[in-house]
């Protein structure tokens, strides 16, 4: 066989040049970054690295933004300094996906060598990262993801999974009961005479949505309501006409459920108004992120939600400071709660420094076991709710009652939340739209 000519193989000199350039550039880049990593390893052990897990991109990116801001604010307050330790935050992006989160978390452990983990939003991410934390024995503090599924996993092997130290949010049933109580009280008082006692459940199709709706479902049934349907929708779905028309034809007095991503929840509320649904809507999580009212408009009037309010002066101060710095209106449950939990973490770090003189994974694990889980260490000046405390009985949930941790039930009007329950905090009675 005769050889091929060079000219045909390399049809295009510029092409070759271009590829060679790309090749060498990538190799250089690899080399450069590689050596950079080597330096990190040698950093002095006075630096404490905290991996902050949050949905920084993906459908819940807005929550991630608030997480970032609140955590920064809490650590700026102590100037990123605990004793003579410097705090370094490592952002771990969960992308709202269990698998990606687990990968990123493991990456942060092996690459960035974090000393402990902090925060998280979704419970399915909790479930996957719990495994990673247990594998590497890294304590992870105050993840918000709160459904039963996290508790179940913890209880399946408390020894192994206690590294997932405390949840920032109790199991849904502890909070969702307030909705049923609110409605029942309104009926007792004669504020509302529902045309029937039928309720339809809906929810985003994941651990959170199903866990919440299931808890609420049995609570409604216990109170003598009939649950006539259940609908699960995919994360990010924005088309609800068929489902809402079905609910409308079922003629229920109440529809109750939750969705956690802004496009879904706002489309749902908006479209419920468009199809003329004549039911009271319980929508847990509508107000979780700041800009919901821009998306729903007046369709959100009369919608019932459960969210802590910026009631205390400290809370209002935090909220206005937050808005000033980041140009975002913080959501109470994302920004606010995160701020409290970050301050709790600061307290944990300080305690660790006082007791052991050194902050590292091992000592933090001891603090988690001896102080946090036992209820010795609490945060009692939270901006969102009075006291954050874990006891061996409630662990991994925080203590939930009116003195410790509870959220008021609210109803929206013109984008403003009015507290309708409990009695002590009430701003007005539950309002019922005409004809319901």
């Amino acid at each position, binding site marked *: *066989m*005769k*050889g*091929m000519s060079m000219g*045909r193989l390399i049809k295009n000199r510029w092409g070759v040049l271009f590829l060679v350039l790309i090749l060498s550039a990538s190799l250089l880049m690899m080399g450069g970054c590689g050596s950079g990593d080597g330096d990190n390893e040698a950093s002095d052990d006075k630096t404490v690295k905290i991996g902050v897990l949050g949905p920084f991109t993906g459908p819940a990116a807005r929550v991630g933004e608030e997480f970032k801001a609140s955590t920064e604010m809490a650590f700026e307050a102590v100037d990123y300094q605990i004793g003579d330790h410097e705090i370094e935050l490592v952002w771990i992006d969960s992308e709202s996906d269990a698998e990606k989160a687990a990968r990123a978390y493991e990456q942060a452990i092996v690459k960035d060598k974090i000393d402990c983990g902090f925060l998280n939003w979704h419970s399915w991410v909790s479930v996957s990262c719990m495994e990673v934390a247990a594998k590497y024995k890294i304590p992870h503090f105050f993840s918000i993801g709160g459904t039963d599924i996290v508790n179940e996993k913890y209880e399946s092997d408390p020894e192994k999974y206690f590294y997932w130290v405390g949840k920032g949010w109790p199991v849904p049933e502890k909070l969702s009961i307030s909705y049923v109580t609110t409605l029942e009280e309104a009926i007792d008082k004669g504020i509302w005479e529902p045309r029937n006692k039928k309720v339809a459940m809906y929810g985003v199709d994941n651990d959170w949505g199903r866990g919440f709706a299931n808890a609420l479902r049995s609570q409604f049934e216990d109170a003598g309501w009939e649950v006539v349907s259940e609908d699960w929708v995919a994360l990010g779905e924005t088309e609800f006409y068929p489902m809402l028309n079905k609910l409308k034809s079922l003629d229920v007095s109440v529809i109750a459920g939750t969705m956690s991503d802004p496009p879904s929840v706002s489309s749902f509320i908006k479209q419920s108004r468009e199809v003329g649904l004549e039911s009271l809507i319980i929508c847990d999580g509508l107000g979780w992120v700041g800009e919901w009212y821009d998306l729903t408009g007046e369709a959100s009037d009369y919608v019932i939600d459960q969210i802590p309010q910026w009631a205390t002066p400290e809370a209002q101060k935090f909220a206005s400071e937050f808005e000033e710095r980041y140009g975002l209106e913080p959501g109470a449950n994302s920004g606010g709660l995160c701020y409290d939990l970050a301050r709790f973490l600061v307290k944990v770090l300080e305690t660790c420094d006082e007791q052991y003189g050194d902050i590292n994974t091992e000592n933090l694990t001891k603090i988690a076991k001896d102080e946090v889980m036992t209820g010795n260490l609490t945060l009692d000046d939270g901006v969102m709710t009075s006291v954050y405390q874990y006891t061996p009985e409630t662990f991994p949930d925080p203590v939930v009652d009116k003195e410790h941790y509870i959220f008021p039930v609210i109803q929206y009007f013109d984008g403003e939340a009015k507290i309708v329950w409990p009695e002590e905090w009430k701003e007005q009675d539950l309002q019922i739209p005409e004809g319901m």
Partner: protein
Amino acid sequence: MLECWVLLGGTLDSTQQNRNPLNRVVCNILGLLETKNVTKRFGGLTAVNDVSLNVEEGQIFGLIGPNGAGKTTLLNCISGVYKPEEGHIFFNGEDVTSFSADKICHTGIARTFQIVHSFPTMSVLENVMVGATFGGRKDREKPENIAEKMLDFVDFPLDYDVLAQDVNTVQLKQVELARAMATECNLLLLDEVAAGLTPGELDVISKLILRIKDSGITIIMVEHLMKLIMGVCDRIAVLSFGQKIAEGPPKEIAENEKVVEAYLGTKRKH
């Protein structure tokens, strides 16, 4: 693993059948290829209507007719691209009517296309090797050697390593012929091999066709170009609107009134 698969898969390349000498003898009497009352319809249109042909071994058999007469369709029926609705096709005495295109190739019928089909990013040699590897018997010499021989045979003028996408039409036709012959066929179907060629190139191709015939391969050719057909064919059949209207040696056909009426008449306007 690979061998296993081939074993399990049975006939990845089914070996050729009907090659025993006794069959051949019978065939010589019956003719190498016979179509019996072949009819092919597309929806309401009958493209080939009740056509019976008998092609004897060693002939160059011409198939002519005006545009849309069903010549290419008949060729496609023989080569297994279409299945006729009615009628049968016998090759070497075997009924091959329902054979798929690749199986037809294994029985010893090869073809070329009206618009050249090639494997553009393979070299010319590889193009021909495809035919030698998959069309021929397994126990022959190396496909590479066969391919080189075939390219030599068709006088392919360029380096055999050149890619098929880089050669011109007449060269592609040569490659296609070489590929078809590399399948070790007994019968070669040529579909308008002269289309788009200059008179000089035409000369090259018609000489080549005669050389192929001399090597013992029977040829059926569909052609528009009268000069070529009359020059090389031993026998000619004429199709018009799907039906065979005449058959015979070239001289007879040229004088046949029906043909002049149906075919040559329209041809002159061209």
